[in-house]
């Protein structure tokens, strides 16, 4: 399956990109997928990261499906 992964702010800087597409085995768990993304961009490990699946905060147990929109970002700092 193919998923898109979005980066914002600090994570976009660390990944050197704002969006990638990655292939994964079907029905992977969110925590595996996000783990792989962090392995791919090791500088992300410098940050406390938050994850989202389809624009909702993800805990890690979620099952990822083909076409899902994932996002990796640091703790929010709006306001």
């Amino acid at each position, binding site marked *: 399956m193919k998923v898109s992964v979005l980066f914002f702010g*600090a994570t976009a800087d660390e990944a050197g990109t704002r969006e990638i597409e990655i292939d994964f085995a079907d029905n992977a768990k969110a925590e595996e997928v996000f783990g792989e993304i962090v392995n791919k961009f090791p500088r992300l490990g410098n940050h406390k990261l938050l994850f989202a699946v389809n624009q909702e905060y993800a805990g890690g147990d979620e099952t990822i499906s083909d076409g899902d929109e994932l996002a990796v970002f640091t703790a929010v700092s709006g306001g």
Partner: protein
Amino acid sequence: MPEKEIQNPKSKTQNRLDFYKITTEPLDVGAIARKIVPASCGAIVTLDGFVRQFTKGRETEYLVYEAYEPMALKEMEKLVARAHAEFEIENVGIVHRLGRLEIGETSVVISVAAPHRRAAFEACEWLIKELKRTVPIWKKEVYRGGETWIEGAN
């Protein structure tokens, strides 16, 4: 960046004058508060957050705000629904600005209209605290000689 706006959503948890919006345009604090005035209410409490010149002794040149826009709007919608569930309020308006903001420019406005001002104060304070915790927006501080993305505490 195009101006984004969702107004008067049909969701059952939303009151008809609620609105929330992210925008790259300058914010008019008074106009935002006025959008949520219902005839039955007597008080609006508004928080106007703006770009400070000094943070922890360092002089800021300007800020850049960036959002995960569709998720930010979803989280703002949830915030408004939670505020209605927790407080005796009539309407809520939330607008966050994105892009480059100069010193003194307003980055966020939260207005709450309520029959009793106590609830308006409580809900407004709760909303800014929760917005800073949950809505996926980030600010980059640009200062002389460098810049850094600010990371929240949660």
